[in-house]
């Protein structure tokens, strides 16, 4: 029988703080370039993410502003909240790279860009609760999808995860 990870590994104070006082949680963003809707059908979690991309001729496009809204557990909503803080202002390619660092961390494959993830680092402990990993990834998956949707020249995308 596996050892029992501590509940405090899952629900760190930083995570509960994001859950109680969400950052950049909003049902609308005016104007925005992309809106994506992501659902985890197995648990019923749903998340809307809106992204405004700031781009000028002289610089690479950046995350101008990103907001999320949704119906989900504390882990999924808090992770999306922490994600918005970590990626705002970053170049799109850089935000993608940071998302990959988060994904690897959640799968127990090392901790990279610890300082850039900001409060996202607090979700490390979720990796010990395999059934909750997909909750923590939902917001980051939505961001990744929003960026690729933007790059493809589209404004809307809906994804249902397996």
């Amino acid at each position, binding site marked *: 029988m596996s050892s*029992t990870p501590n*509940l405090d590994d899952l629900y760190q104070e930083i995570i509960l703080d994001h859950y109680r006082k969400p950052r950049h949680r909003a049902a609308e963003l005016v104007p925005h370039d992309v809106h994506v809707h992501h659902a985890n059908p197995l648990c*019923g979690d749903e998340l809307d993410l809106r992204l405004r991309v700031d781009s000028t001729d002289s610089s690479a496009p950046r995350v101008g502003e990103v907001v999320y809204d949704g119906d*989900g*557990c*504390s882990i999924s909503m808090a992770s999306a909240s922490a994600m918005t803080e970590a990626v705002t202002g970053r170049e799109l390619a850089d935000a993608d790279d940071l998302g990959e660092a988060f994904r690897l961390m959640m799968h127990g494959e090392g901790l990279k860009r610890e300082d850039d993830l900001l409060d996202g680092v607090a979700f490390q402990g979720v990796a010990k*609760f395999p059934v909750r990993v997909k*909750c923590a990834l939902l917001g980051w998956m939505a961001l990744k999808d929003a960026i690729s949707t933007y790059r493809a020249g589209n404004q809307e995308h809906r994804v249902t995860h397996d």
Partner: protein
Amino acid sequence: MLDVETVRKDFPILERQVHGRPLVYLDSAATSQKPQAVLDAMDRYYEQSNANVHRGVHALAEEATEAYEHARGKVARFVGADPRGVVFTKNATEAFNVLAYSLAANRLGDGDILLSTQMEHHANLVPWQLVQPRAGFEIRYIPVITAGPEAGTLDLDAFDEIVATGRVKLLTVTAMSNVVGTINPVAQMAARVRNANAEAVVVVDGAQSVPHLPTDLLALEADFLCFSGHKMLGPTGIGVLAGKPELLDDMPPFLGGGEMIANVTLEGTTFNEVPYKFEAGTPPIAEAVGLGAAVDYLSALGMDAVRAHEVALLEHVLPALNSVEGVTVHGPAEPSGRGAAVSFAVEGLHPHDIGTIMDREGVAVRAGHHCAKPLVRLLGSAATTRASFYVYNTVDEVQVLIDAIEATKRFFAR
């Protein structure tokens, strides 16, 4: 009244601990635990009689065939069906698929209504949806009342209006909701549908009712009843389609292969008689034996006693949940109108968080949409927490559940 402490001794898994606490298993609507008698029956079959059925002339083949057919007889008696109308499938879902592809796709067409409800499990929604485009019938859903004293029950006025069209050719309805526990007036609905259209066929989802209520196919006025073994103390891997042999006779086979044939040539095939026509390939033999033992176990307890035990638990759990601040219980308020699957919401808390924290207390509940997304949406959310009770649950466990909810609230309020 059954003696729950004696019953508990028959279930070895109840002795284990989870995260250092005694297991409080409140997820029997997903799958039930198995008594020693079921485990022993399956072991004995493999240790002493294992062979393939309906073929071979040796002693083991005869014993295996007899054990398999004996189990069919037990299951038939348990639900008041003709053994020739008892088809073993791999689960209740497969039973619905047999009916969708072999019955609905042939019997229903343009202008016909297949009438279902908003309360159904996906197993009783998706198969019909899959065959609908080819067959051309219309699917209508009886609404679920969402507010007031009748919340969580079917809107029977709306049902009557649809039935009055005279176009309902198939009614499919759950006898007991797996989410909110509602016991539906199946016999009354079946009679009304038949009055309006003598050719109508009635299908009942018994996955939740057969394990928990005395069941009689005739009393239900149903043509077909679908249920699964693993929710009624039996093993996984076996389900049952119980129905009228003459209707099964008229239906083409669903799956083809060995066992279901009378004669095969390279030019074509004639089919075996029912129920074998619908049992292609080597069937779940040990599982049937296990299900037969489960039926024996439930019959020895007595299904009236099983129901009385659950009503007694509901009389504790419903007021206890309602007394917790911020808790809303879904479905009928009175134990008489419902089964022991109890979904609830806790204000400000997500079911997954509740489920994770309860797990730490040793309490196993289900968090999610319970494979009934349309109904859970109607309840105003994407997920609920569900505690479901069975023969081995105690009043003390109700208190553990309530304490665990309070602990979860404290955890998130800190």
